[in-house]
């Protein structure tokens, strides 16, 4: 998100914002002056005040002036646009490389030591080169606070973006290119840390969980998004590979346990067992063995957040 307080979040902010100021300044000037002049003419030369028009065919000098002046101004604007953009084109040699995988509908980030996350953790004041890999369709990696955006194109090699984070904090990262059903949920966060804090994080291979900076409901949804629940379980009641999540919370459902059919109440206990041991109780009408256990991938805290989200699916 753009915010005047978040200045200098990356090395590109100044160049881009200068271009904005120049272009918006010129634009507002022309918009206001031309509108005021037009309204003034309509008032001053109204038929009541000016019953007879003075016929003027044109004025070559004026035509030349208002061709040349806008031309020069557009070249000024072009220059600032170019100047803010040019440094984005070439990444420094000492950049830290991270590979970004975009798929319908999440991002994952792979570090040089093989660590993979769903949130982009970065060290401050270090040039970062993101190598962009699209697994299925077009995506676009967009970090507004850093003023960067680059499409992720399947099959395209050496597609990258680079920047240098210059401010600690948590920033939004969106997919900006429409990519299908869950496009508007394809977002995650960038966390910029002090260098030694980042190094500690990078070597610690036990931390993979998402940043918990939203409400439990939103976090639960994002966890499910990132781990891919919605590929098999719909949100709208339609039957996919697995049963829909819509309206299941607090309801009685018929499941097959072993060879027996029984009724269960969907509560926190049942959801946890369905995630950790999905083939124990299978909802009637669905096949066993299609879902694998998420033990080790989702923590109890994650499941608490997921439950909060499922409660909202009425």
């Amino acid at each position, binding site marked *: 998100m753009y915010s005047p307080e978040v200045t200098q979040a990356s090395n*590109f902010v100044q160049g*881009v914002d200068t*271009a*904005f100021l120049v*272009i*918006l300044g010129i*634009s507002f000037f*022309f*918009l206001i002056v*031309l509108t005021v002049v*037009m309204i003034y*003419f*309509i008032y001053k*030369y109204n*038929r009541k005040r*000016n*019953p007879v*028009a*003075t*016929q*003027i065919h*044109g*004025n070559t000098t*004026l*035509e030349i002036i*208002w*061709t040349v002046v*806008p*031309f020069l101004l*557009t070249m000024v*604007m*072009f220059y*600032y*646009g*170019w100047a*803010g*953009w040019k440094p984005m084109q070439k990444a420094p040699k000492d950049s830290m490389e991270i590979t970004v995988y975009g798929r319908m509908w999440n991002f994952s980030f792979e570090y040089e030591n093989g660590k993979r996350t769903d949130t982009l953790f970065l060290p401050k004041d270090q040039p970062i080169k993101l190598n962009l890999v699209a697994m*299925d*369709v*077009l995506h*676009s990696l*967009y970090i507004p606070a850093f*003023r960067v*955006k*680059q*499409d992720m*194109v399947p*099959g*395209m090699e050496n597609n990258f973006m680079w920047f240098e984070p210059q401010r600690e904090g948590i920033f*939004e990262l*969106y997919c*900006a*290119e*429409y*990519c*299908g*059903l869950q*496009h508007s949920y394809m977002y995650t966060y960038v966390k910029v840390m002090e260098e030694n804090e980042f190094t500690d994080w990078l070597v610690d291979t036990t931390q993979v969980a998402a940043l918990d900076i939203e409400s439990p409901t939103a976090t639960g949804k994002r966890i499910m998004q990132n781990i891919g629940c919605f590929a098999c379980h719909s*949100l*709208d009641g339609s039957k996919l590979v697995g049963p829909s999540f819509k309206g299941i919370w607090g309801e009685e459902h018929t499941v097959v346990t072993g060879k027996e059919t029984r009724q269960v109440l969907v509560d926190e206990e049942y959801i946890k067992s369905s995630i950790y041991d999905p083939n124990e109780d299978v909802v009637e009408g669905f096949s066993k063995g299609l879902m694998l256990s998420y033990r080790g991938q989702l923590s109890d805290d994650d499941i608490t957040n997921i439950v909060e989200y499922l409660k909202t699916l009425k």
Partner: protein
Amino acid sequence: MQTAHSANEANYLTYKGKYKGLLGWIFSTDHKRIGLLYLYSILTMFSVGVLLGLAMKFELLAPGKTIMEAQTYNSAFTVHGVIMIFMVVIPGLPAVFGNIMLPIMIGAKDVAFPKLNLLSWWLYVLGVILVLAALMFGSGAPDTGWTFYAPYSFKSGTNLLPAVFGAFVLGFSSILTGLNFLVTIHRLRCPGMKWTKMPLFVWTLYGTAWIQLLATPVVGITLVLVALERMFGIGVFDPALGGDPVLYQHLFWIYSHPAVYVMILPAMGAISEIIPTFSQKQIFGYKAIIASTMAIAFVGYLVWGHHMFTAGMSGTAQYYFSLLTFIVAIPSAIKVFNWISTMYKGSINVQTPLYWAASFVFVFLIGGLSGLVLGALATDIYVHDTAFVVAHFHYIVFGGTGFAFFAAAHYWFPKIYGRMYDKGWANTGWLVFFIGFLALYTPMFYLGMMGMPRRYYDYLDEFHSGNILSTFGSWIMVTGLVIIVVNLVRSARKGEPAEMNPWHSKTLEWTVSSPPPVENFDELPVIAEDDGPYNYK
């Protein structure tokens, strides 16, 4: 429906040809009847597009699900885009007011190929039916966005092929109309109507026709390739088959950017008629406006890459596309300066069409100036694919073309129907519409600057307030729209009979009776050496 001027002979609305009733319309080769056929079909599609837009804005009133699921929303913006672009705005002014007015304005009895003209309308209807079939039958409405970007358009399970084929057929309708207008303007001008005596609306139709003729085939070819790829997997665009998705974007925008000028040039032409008429004054810089029209039509071919600054083009390509985009802004600026100068020392008759024309200049300025943000490289990288772009192009194609369409409708209405509308209601409708328009689209500039991506079914809480205002705006705007349309429909049947030339204009269409007779002129007019379309005394 007759006025005193044509009491003795049938006008184009009342005459009886070989067929009666509805058949007399849909098989008529009269350019004015075909223009009205387009008007009614375009207004029908416009209503569908508006309802879809209204539903989308309602969905965005609050984060999370409001009234529809994500799949429905994605289909809604796709179908809204396809309908509004291909069925409403591109045919819009040329097919309606171009058809009705072009032959009369150059002193001709009809277009050069009246039967081809009728065929164009039939193709338009066929294209519309094909796209609607995609909506209502098969696996569901397309959900790819109106741009049909590869490779998503190959992976989506929805009913894309009929929609693509429909767009292809609509393209042919556009090409044939362009061809027809070109030949008409070259061959059928009345004696004495030199190129430098043509009304500016005709000049803009001329520039538009060249774009329709030369650029539309590219999108036809592209859509055929999409269809072949989907049916036979030939591997041009889909990377899974060795194709290049960026190539698709190039081909798509090589047509679709010039198409923006198909939308806006005739709009500029209509404004160039209205401002001198209501100022009772010679247009300022007639030749400069012509030169800028042709410059836009030409340079407009060379700027398509500015839709692709983040797509992965080479840096050199981005540099030149940005530079050329700034160049194409200049002719539009020249037009605005000339329009405002035309009002200087005029005798301005403030009527409904002038309200529309002046508000056109205002919203077109905002649309055009926000385009500079998108043409510059650094700033485009930031706002590309955000709500800012949505605001920008709605200001251009709805603010620009839409306002000009309503300006033209209120300007030529007494000529087309021989009746005058209720001016009080017309002005009220304009004011409500204008306020609603600003409230609907202005917040999107802000949302884009905040970083909200476009085509978003759901959004984070920080984007909520802007979306609320935008949704309220959509309700106000539609209220205005209803007032405008009800007033015009009612007045077409019950309005006061209109004079032949109620606005005291100098162009030829105002020298024939209202509504015009079947073949426009009993005797072809002759333009005297010292006469011209804007020779006010």
